[in-house]
């Protein structure tokens, strides 16, 4: 497709006040799709002033564990979230800061923030105020529990939303307590809902000329993504038990150890046909003909023994060999890939999924690409993540028409800057 094709969100301007993950995950998609996303941060929120080499070693997110002279520009987490975006600093706890923000609202389409619900009103910013400035503005707020209700002021992270929403109840070793995602999954999941909501509002605005207020609760994302289970509970009266990697209608179904340290292959056998194929694929061993395993019911009933047999088959094998052999026999199977195997996955690489960015301070970095693959207006990697305050000249100068002197004055009064401020 033409490399010059414009992104589907070309011409859409987003003011991104969001932090950490849920919000940035959303604006990262908007930016990949061609929106002009201006990330706005107060410099107290950028992170600590100093990152020692030791801390960098623990975090593992600075290139070669070297935080460099300006660590805030070298953190690969931030640079992944910040790709394709522009960056300005602005102290919103100052009158001048808020005034400049409002001027930007006048010429923008979307504002997004994921602060706790008291932060923005404290700064004198809320939807009614911004709507008065620009009736077409779409304002998305996405605190953990929502902007209203008894838990509205609860401090939350993806890690606490996970058990609260019921998501964690759907993961766990058999008979044990709910298990947290290793990955703060509710964060990106909430970001996905925000993305869809914003685009729906945008589509609507192209018709009505009016913006709107989007009130998202991250906790509700988790409950929406387990909605079939909460409805199922009402129908059956049963709370689904935790069954590890087992499955109520499939056996064998689990992660089985393979050759090497911490290597596993996930194998899923459901239908009778798949069971027959599986038996053939593993070489028709004697145990597979055991009458206890003749029917799905029998296999479900005797899972521990069955799992033992399967593990005996996988244990001496390379996980990839096991996966390929089973997949060729029509069995769902997959290597439980770690970070290294994932980024070297031949399929993802052949599909060109990963994007490389050459960042001026962090070097070449490989990030996940964009799963939204549109044939005519593809998502693209336009530019590496900005350095802190990199786009002051464009945003304050070109967009808002401030003179060089005025921008220098903002620097001198600390309303903008290029280094983090120490948290008090």
């Amino acid at each position, binding site marked *: 497709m033409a490399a010059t094709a414009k992104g589907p969100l070309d011409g859409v301007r987003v003011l991104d006040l969001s932090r950490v993950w849920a919000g940035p995950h959303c604006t990262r998609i908007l930016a990949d799709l061609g929106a002009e996303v201006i990330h706005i941060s107060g410099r107290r929120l950028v992170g600590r002033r100093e990152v020692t080499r030791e801390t960098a070693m623990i975090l593992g997110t600075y290139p070669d564990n070297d935080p460099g002279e300006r660590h805030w520009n070298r953190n690969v987490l931030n640079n992944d979230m910040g790709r394709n975006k522009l960056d300005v600093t602005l102290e919103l706890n100052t009158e001048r800061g808020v005034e400049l923000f409002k001027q930007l609202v006048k010429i923008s389409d979307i504002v997004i923030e994921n602060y706790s619900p008291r932060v923005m009103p404290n700064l004198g910013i809320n939807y009614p105020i911004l709507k008065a400035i620009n009736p077409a503005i779409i304002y998305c707020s996405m605190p953990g529990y929502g902007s209203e209700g008894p838990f509205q002021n609860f401090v939350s992270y993806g890690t606490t939303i996970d058990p609260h929403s019921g998501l964690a109840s759907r993961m766990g070793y058999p008979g044990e307590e709910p298990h947290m995602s290793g990955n703060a999954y509710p964060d990106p999941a909430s970001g996905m809902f925000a993305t869809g909501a914003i685009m729906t509002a945008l589509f609507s605005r192209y018709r009505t000329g009016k913006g709107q207020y989007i009130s998202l609760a991250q906790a509700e994302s988790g409950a929406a993504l387990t909605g079939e289970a909460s409805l199922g509970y009402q129908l059956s009266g049963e709370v689904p038990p935790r069954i590890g990697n087992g499955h109520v209608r499939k056996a064998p179904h689990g*992660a089985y150890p393979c050759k090497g340290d911490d290597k*596993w292959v996930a194998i899923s056998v459901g239908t009778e046909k798949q069971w027959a194929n599986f038996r053939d694929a593993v070489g028709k061993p004697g145990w597979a003909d055991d009458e206890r395993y003749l029917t799905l019911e029998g296999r479900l009933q005797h899972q521990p023994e069955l799992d033992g047999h399967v593990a005996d088959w996988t244990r001496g094998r390379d996980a990839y060999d096991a996966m390929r052999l089973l997949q060729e026999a029509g069995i769902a199977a997959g290597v439980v890939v*770690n970070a290294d195997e994932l980024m070297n*996955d031949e399929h993802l690489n052949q599909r060109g999924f990963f994007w490389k960015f050459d960042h001026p301070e962090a070097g070449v970095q*490989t990030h*996940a690409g964009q799963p939204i693959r549109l044939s005519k207006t593809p998502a693209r990697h336009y530019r590496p993540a900005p350095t802190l305050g990199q786009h002051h000249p464009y945003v304050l100068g070109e967009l808002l028409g401030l003179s060089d002197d005025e921008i220098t004055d903002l620097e001198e009064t600390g309303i903008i800057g290029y280094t983090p401020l120490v948290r008090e």
Partner: protein
Amino acid sequence: MATVSELGNGALAELTVLDLSHYVAGAYCGKLLAAFGAEVIKIEAPGVGDGARQVGPFPDRSPDPEASALYLYLNTGKKGLTLDLASEGGSAILKELVTQTDVLIENFAPGVMESMGLDYATLSAINPRLVMASISNFGQSGPYREYRADTMVEMALSGQMYVNGDPDREPLSSSGYQPSYQSALYAYSGIMAALIARDRDDKGQYLDVSIQEAMVSEHQFTLNGFTASGKIRMRSGNRYGSVHPSTILPCKADDNGKPGLVSLGISDPTQYVLFLQLLDMSELLDDPRFANPQMCAVNYREFDALISTWFMDHTAEEIVNALQDNRIPAAFVNEVSDVLDDPQYEFRGFWKEIDHPVAGNHRYAGLPYHLSEAPPVYERANLLGEHTNEVLAEKLGYDSDRLGQLREGGVI
């Protein structure tokens, strides 16, 4: 320009969607479009319908294709049309419908649409404004294109599973359908983006969403550590990463005898100091093993043993309230039954009561967001083939003779 009230029943009321989904991924995507007023026509095979109808859970554990929770939840607000797409008559009808369609969603295995003569090239020739979204396990190209998968296999091959669970036990997948749900959300946004682009150039396009890629995109931290420094993110048990206590801990059972569990999300030093003050255990800060959340993570077993007395003396509610009063992140640990009674969800009106002629009246999870000017519409799932006559009569002008013939021929 239309006003909001002229838009009628939602932001997407002008759209017609053909939903050729089965199970979860395509179905959830179609449900989201229906929630904003799009006319979503769910197309199922005559007789059996969507496989989700066989999954359950069912009322009284008795299987009924019209009362499967999975189907009911994922197909709210849709019209039901049965059509044998594999038959010549069926694919011809689909092509006729495509002329009046904005969006087509399908999640067959790659190649299936093509085998029925319904690939994007064919359909876009019929209607160049068509936005067609295909969701599949591994996408429409590449060496794994034909690979089979379910939730666990997607969790495995996307790298999600490796980081879930105890370091000294097998990695954990999750029950439910998270990979499919995420791909549905990518498809939803992709479709909206394509519709926005279509407003400009009047052309539709094709959207290829891979469930694997969706899930790989949901843990950048794993990828970022590896690309920066070669770090391989490991499982850390029922705890989060390199800070503690960000975990789930046992506590005192409540008055109803519900086993006590509470979630903590302490990661920054200020919260950590406040937490120990609250427990009256500030002296732990002088012990190098527990000097800060990072050191605490290294010595979490000893730490959990030390604080367990206090936790076993307090219920989850007491702990959550005491900690939150001090701005320390703590939360309830809920089963899917508990969330139905949670006061926060209740306050925001998250649960939607929907009546269904077979399954009865129940509370369904809504959307996690409110749009101030375009409130979502929540209507029950379609019965199998419920709107077949209506859709074919209204859209294609078929009379009762024609419908009768099609029914006899097994096409509808």
